[in-house]
């Protein structure tokens, strides 16, 4: 049975318009560059196809694995069991919230409805915010994909530390100054589930076989839900790599501040799933500074176009503003500091 969600449906045209505008501008710039330089279009097309395949095929297994894990967790792990071990202090709750992602491995799309569900079950504000911001990175799938893309080194460690640091600071600030009753939108208490939740139905009384089937079904839905973002993200990244001259990128991203700023804006616009963004960032390694890459990897999973739209469906506008602004500023600051420390 198909269930319509008025709020989700009303957001889709905005997303479509943004994607179409973005794709149209990139395509126009690409065609202009190709015609101006007199490039061989056939050669350019083959290069694009190879780069698209390189990004897409490499990322698909991780998205599939992440989706299946998400389905299994959704089906077999009871939220109440996790909530039993809640820390009492605000800082402890924020730190605990960052680690909660290991129990609920969700991407930035799935984390919003999960956080709302946890808030309804009595999760402290600071813990919920920390989970919301950190969970898209703090899960085994994203650790694995970052490790495969960059190996065990500065980028992986920097991404983990920066994610935890930013999530804890933002969660503590919001937890200290915001009234928990003024955080969630009143409508969100009764609202239907976002994004991944249209397929969720009572599974408590089901047998093992039915639960497994349900987990696979939820995983498949998650995969198809995120798949379109992966196709769009891979296409946009391949287009950028193929058509935008490296010199232009270098000019835009030169300097310890501008490079970080540009990569954060790119992360926001691309809205690529956190399970696969490492492979996109890998393509920019030779073009941008290490601080910019780490900021891209830390900021992207926390806030992007699609998650911001979902935030507005759950949180009040003021909180959404802080949820976007604080991670942006903190990641920018950290990225610049990393660049300066590395002598960029």
């Amino acid at each position, binding site marked *: 049975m198909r269930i319509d969600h008025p709020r989700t449906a009303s957001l889709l045209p905005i997303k479509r318009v943004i994607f179409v505008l973005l794709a149209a501008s990139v395509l126009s710039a690409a065609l202009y560059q190709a015609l101006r330089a007199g490039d061989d279009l056939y050669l350019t097309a083959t290069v694009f196809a*190879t780069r698209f395949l390189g990004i897409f095929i490499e990322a698909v297994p991780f998205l599939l694995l992440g989706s299946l894990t998400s389905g299994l967790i959704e089906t077999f792990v009871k939220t109440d069991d996790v909530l039993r071990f809640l820390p009492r202090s605000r800082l402890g709750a924020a730190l605990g919230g960052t680690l909660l992602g290991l129990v609920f491995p969700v991407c930035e799309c799935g984390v919003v409805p999960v956080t709302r569900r946890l808030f309804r079950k009595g999760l402290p504000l600071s813990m919920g915010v920390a989970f919301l911001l950190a969970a898209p990175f703090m899960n085994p799938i994203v650790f694995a994909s970052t490790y495969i893309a960059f190996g065990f080194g500065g980028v992986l460690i920097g991404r983990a530390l920066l994610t935890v640091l930013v999530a804890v600071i933002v969660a503590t600030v919001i937890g200290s100054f915001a009234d928990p009753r003024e955080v969630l939108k009143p409508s969100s208490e009764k609202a239907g589930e976002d994004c991944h939740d249209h397929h969720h139905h009572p599974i408590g009384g089901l047998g093992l076989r039915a639960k497994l089937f349900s987990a696979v079904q939820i995983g498949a839905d998650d995969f198809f839900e995120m798949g379109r973002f992966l196709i769009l993200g891979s296409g946009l990244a391949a287009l950028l790599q193929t058509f935008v001259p490296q010199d232009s990128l270098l000019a835009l991203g030169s300097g310890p501040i501008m490079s970080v700023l540009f990569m954060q804006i790119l992360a926001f616009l691309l809205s690529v799933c956190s399970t696969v963004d490492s492979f996109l960032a890998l393509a920019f390694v030779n073009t941008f500074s290490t601080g910019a890459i780490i900021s891209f990897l830390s900021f992207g999973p926390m806030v992007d176009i699609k998650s911001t739209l979902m935030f507005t469906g759950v949180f009040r506008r003021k909180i959404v503003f802080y949820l976007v602004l604080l991670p942006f500023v903190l990641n920018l600051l950290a990225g610049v500091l990393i660049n300066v420390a590395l002598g960029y």
Partner: protein
Amino acid sequence: MQPNLLFAVGIVIGLAVGVLFGFSIGNVTLGMPTGVMLGLLIGLIMSKSGSDQT
């Protein structure tokens, strides 16, 4: 767009990318099945997300 049309569009996109990939590596025989598999995947994703939005 209708899910079936989106599926067809996905097949065409995937096939085109696969064939172009075949050209780029100088082996169209390998590019064709790659394109078919990619087309099926992209077509399925596009048609599924299209039907979710309706």
